[in-house]
């Protein structure tokens, strides 16, 4: 392409072609945040479940913050490593969606843990994350993600019915369905493209 003047039709064709070229395709990187947060949550859940079952000491609940302590920097470093030539509005919107859901999750968890409020915290977190996954799936127009999120929303009610320490295992299993499996599907699809 050079610095040449165009006629009107050529101008319009060029505009259409360039806009069409920027249409976002799924990339393998799209699945990575799901995998980072999904696996971190499952691992931390299993650690808390094990320690809490073995000792009965509620102070192990503070370990839940490991999800944030591990997930946030890993996501930040991963984002820095990804030098994408372009950032679309979709990328920006998804970033804001997860920032909003993440802040809500941290506030609810902090209130429950530090103020000993008897909130059904596992249910609320799964409901929040499931909703975030559904919205992400709708924005990127990828059905497996939408269904995984809907599954998470429906399964979140299990956290209300299963009482005691074993509800943590249900919580971990739901994260497997809602984040890890769709994360792998997205990663695989992105790599194929």
């Amino acid at each position: 392409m050079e610095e040449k003047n165009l006629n009107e039709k050529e101008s319009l064709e060029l505009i259409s072609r360039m806009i069409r070229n920027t249409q976002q395709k799924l990339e393998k990187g799209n699945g990575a945040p799901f995998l980072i947060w999904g696996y971190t949550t499952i691992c931390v859940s299993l650690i808390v479940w094990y320690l809490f079952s073995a000792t009965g000491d509620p102070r192990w609940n503070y370990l839940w913050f490991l999800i944030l302590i591990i997930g946030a920097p890993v996501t930040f470093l991963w984002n820095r490593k990804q030098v994408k030539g372009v950032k679309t509005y979709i990328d920006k919107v998804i970033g804001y969606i997860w920032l909003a859901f993440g802040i809500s999750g941290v506030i609810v968890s902090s209130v429950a843990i530090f103020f000993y409020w008897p909130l059904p915290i596992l249910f609320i977190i799964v409901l929040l994350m499931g909703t975030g996954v559904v919205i992400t799936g709708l924005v990127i127009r990828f059905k497996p993600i939408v269904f995984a999120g809907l599954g998470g929303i429906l399964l979140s009610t299990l956290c209300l019915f299963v009482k005691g320490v074993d509800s943590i295992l249900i919580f971990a299993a739901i994260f497997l369905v809602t984040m890890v499996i769709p994360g792998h599907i997205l990663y695989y699809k992105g790599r194929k493209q």
Partner: protein
Amino acid sequence: MMFETLDPLLHSELRLAIISILISVEEADFNYFKEKTNATSGNLSVQIDKLNEAGYIQVEKGFAGKRTRTVCKITPKGVSAFERYVEALKGYLNLSGSKD
């Protein structure tokens, strides 16, 4: 019937391509433009500078690892110029259509 003149800054193949890309994304870097336009680095650099000087785009130079990275975003002035350009184009195309 009066027609608005086509903005000479946008009525050039490479500059129009750059603005058309930026109108549909949040931001794009130099290599992305190179890939999408097949332009030479020198020419691309000159045209980006012209659009930047006109205030149509905002250019940020940073680093990606050890390499420099030039990232461009369209400004509100650039968006208005693009909209005016498309409106003017429509006028010309309607005229040539009515002649046929």
